[in-house]
């Protein structure tokens, strides 16, 4: 390994991605900053619509119109991706930065054979012949634990189960040994036993090759078992960040607190869950001030101002004027 082990692979600073729809501007990602370090896993949690996926797409440069990155820097090993020309960005995509999507049934083109889809990924970045490319694809399949990869290469996606497809997608992402992989809920659609297999592969990968990982999910429990750091998103913003242990054991933001309380677990068996009242607001008509204000029991007049990021504890950035400093677990 070269450089310091804590050399940041990716630094996102003040990222804003907005959708300019007819109904108004949707601030899907609004002032998001975080850092991902080599060999470590950053968990990005939040409820549906909180902007997790769009954050991922913004990094890899796949935000579709009417969406657009309006502000912020995405420094990938020092280069700002936000200001890259499309052709330059394309060269990075798939080779240095890879992404895996949620639904394994949809990420592979149903009418193309696996080898076609993997070989094109190889050839998109390296001028190698088909045979070499196929060799690479086969090795990658083997690496993610697909038995008899030679035969499987000739198959079509529908001949695979969901878990296998997701592994094909992972293998495809691995073809060029990327430095950063963005995983957008890759296990949500899978059964627990299969999810376990995928988590195992990804963990191994991170450990062995030092790839940095952004793991997007709405499932705190998965984050708990997998990630090193975690960012909690709410309505397009990161409301709390820190290491997994710190955030889960000492949540500072009321939202994080509520989220943790909502997860049924051994501790609260049979008792009512600590629920957050109300529902996630529409990003089109966010209330002024703190977006969580209307659901928060601590809310008061001070929350009418949009809270800035503060650091009430060391290395614990949070976006709240009433952090839950007293709480500990």
């Amino acid at each position: 390994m070269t450089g310091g082990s804590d050399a940041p692979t990716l630094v996102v600073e003040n990222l804003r991605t907005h959708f300019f729809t007819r109904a108004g501007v949707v601030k899907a990602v609004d002032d998001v900053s975080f850092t991902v370090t080599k060999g470590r896993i950053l968990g990005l949690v939040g409820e549906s619509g909180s902007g997790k996926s769009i954050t991922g797409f913004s990094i890899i440069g796949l935000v579709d119109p009417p969406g657009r990155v309006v502000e912020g820097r995405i420094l990938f090993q020092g280069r700002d991706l936000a200001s890259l020309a499309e052709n330059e960005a394309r060269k990075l995509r798939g080779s240095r930065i890879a992404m895996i999507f949620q639904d394994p049934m949809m990420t592979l083109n149903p009418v193309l054979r696996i080898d076609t889809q993997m070989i094109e990924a190889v050839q998109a970045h390296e001028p190698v012949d088909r045979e070499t490319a196929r060799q690479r694809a086969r090795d990658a399949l083997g690496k993610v634990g697909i038995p008899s990869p030679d035969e499987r290469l000739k198959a079509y996606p529908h001949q695979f189960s969901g878990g296998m497809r997701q592994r094909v997608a992972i293998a495809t992402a691995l073809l060029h040994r990327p430095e950063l992989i963005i995983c957008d809920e890759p296990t949500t659609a899978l059964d627990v036993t299969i999810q376990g297999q995928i988590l195992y592969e990804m963990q191994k990968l991170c450990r062995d090759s030092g790839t940095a990982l952004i793991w997007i999910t709405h499932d705190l429990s998965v984050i708990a078992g997998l990630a090193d750091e975690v960012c909690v998103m709410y309505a397009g913003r990161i409301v709390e960040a820190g290491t997994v242990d710190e955030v889960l054991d000492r949540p500072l933001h009321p939202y994080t607190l509520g989220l943790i309380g909502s997860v049924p677990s051994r501790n609260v068996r049979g008792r009512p869950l600590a629920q957050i009242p109300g529902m996630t607001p529409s990003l089109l008509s966010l209330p002024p001030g703190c977006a969580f204000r209307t659901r928060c029991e601590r809310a008061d007049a001070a929350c009418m101002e949009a809270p800035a990021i503060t650091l009430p504890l060391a290395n614990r950035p949070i976006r709240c004027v009433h952090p839950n400093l007293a709480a500990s677990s």
Partner: protein
Amino acid sequence: MPVYFIRRMMQSVLVLFVMSLLVFVGVFAIGNPIDILISPEADQHEIERATRALGLDKPLWEQYGLFVVNALKGDLGRSFVFNIPAIDLILQRMPATMELAITATFMGVLLGIPLGMWAGLRPESFSGKLIMSGSILGFSLPTFWVGLMLIMIFAVFLGWLPSTGRGQTREFLGVHLSILTWDGLRHLAMPAFNLALFKLSLVIRLARAGTREAILQDYVKFARAKGVSSRRIIGVHVFKNIMIPIVTVLGLELGSTIAFAVVTETVFAWPGMGKLIIDSINLLDRPVIVAYLMVIVFMFIFINLVVDLLYSVLDPRVRISESKG
């Protein structure tokens, strides 16, 4: 595969039975062919002789029974008007119609797919909207009217293309094709375009809808995330996906293209079998009508077979062989 065949055959036999019965009863109900064919000066004796000669003196059910028996032996009867086996008559005319229909289909595909994909990729652009408006026009314009307009413009005013007829043909594998000669091609251009217009609109819409749907799919996004160039994404990922509905629909449409050739053939005096069927209905030439329907049905079976084969080539999810246990 064999099961598929059997299914189709069963269906077709039923179609044939119903249609032939309909034609027999129909022609019987419309009128007496003798009344039209016979010379007006003929006397009773001559009328009776002609009726006997065409087998129309027997009761209807007997005529039909005789037809079925003969049809099973492969004899579909002789044309009342032309006095040659009806099937020969149709087979003689078929190449002209097939040539027209297939050329039209190709025109529709070759022009329609790029236009439709373009419109699908830029749904909001002016060109995209123009293409779509054009396709609605293509849907809406009556074929016969367009045909005459084409003749007016390209043959009469501009004089670029011959107005009507089939032009010079060349024999290829026993059939006469005009597509093999320059003169023939020039004759083919207008009627084929006329017939293609509807297909063209259809293909444009299918291609556009397919493209719009495909580019929203995760697999396209994933391909982009792999760093694949957009040329390849559109040319391979999107293209292969939109081909599935296009091939299916066009295949099924080829039948109606052949049928709708009736109109084009009438306008352009194209000596195909569509014109033949109209004339045969006018002259109550029953054997030809029945034989025509038979030929159409068999053509349908064949076309459907080809479509299904193509379909399974294009869409691996529905390989026919897969239904096998």
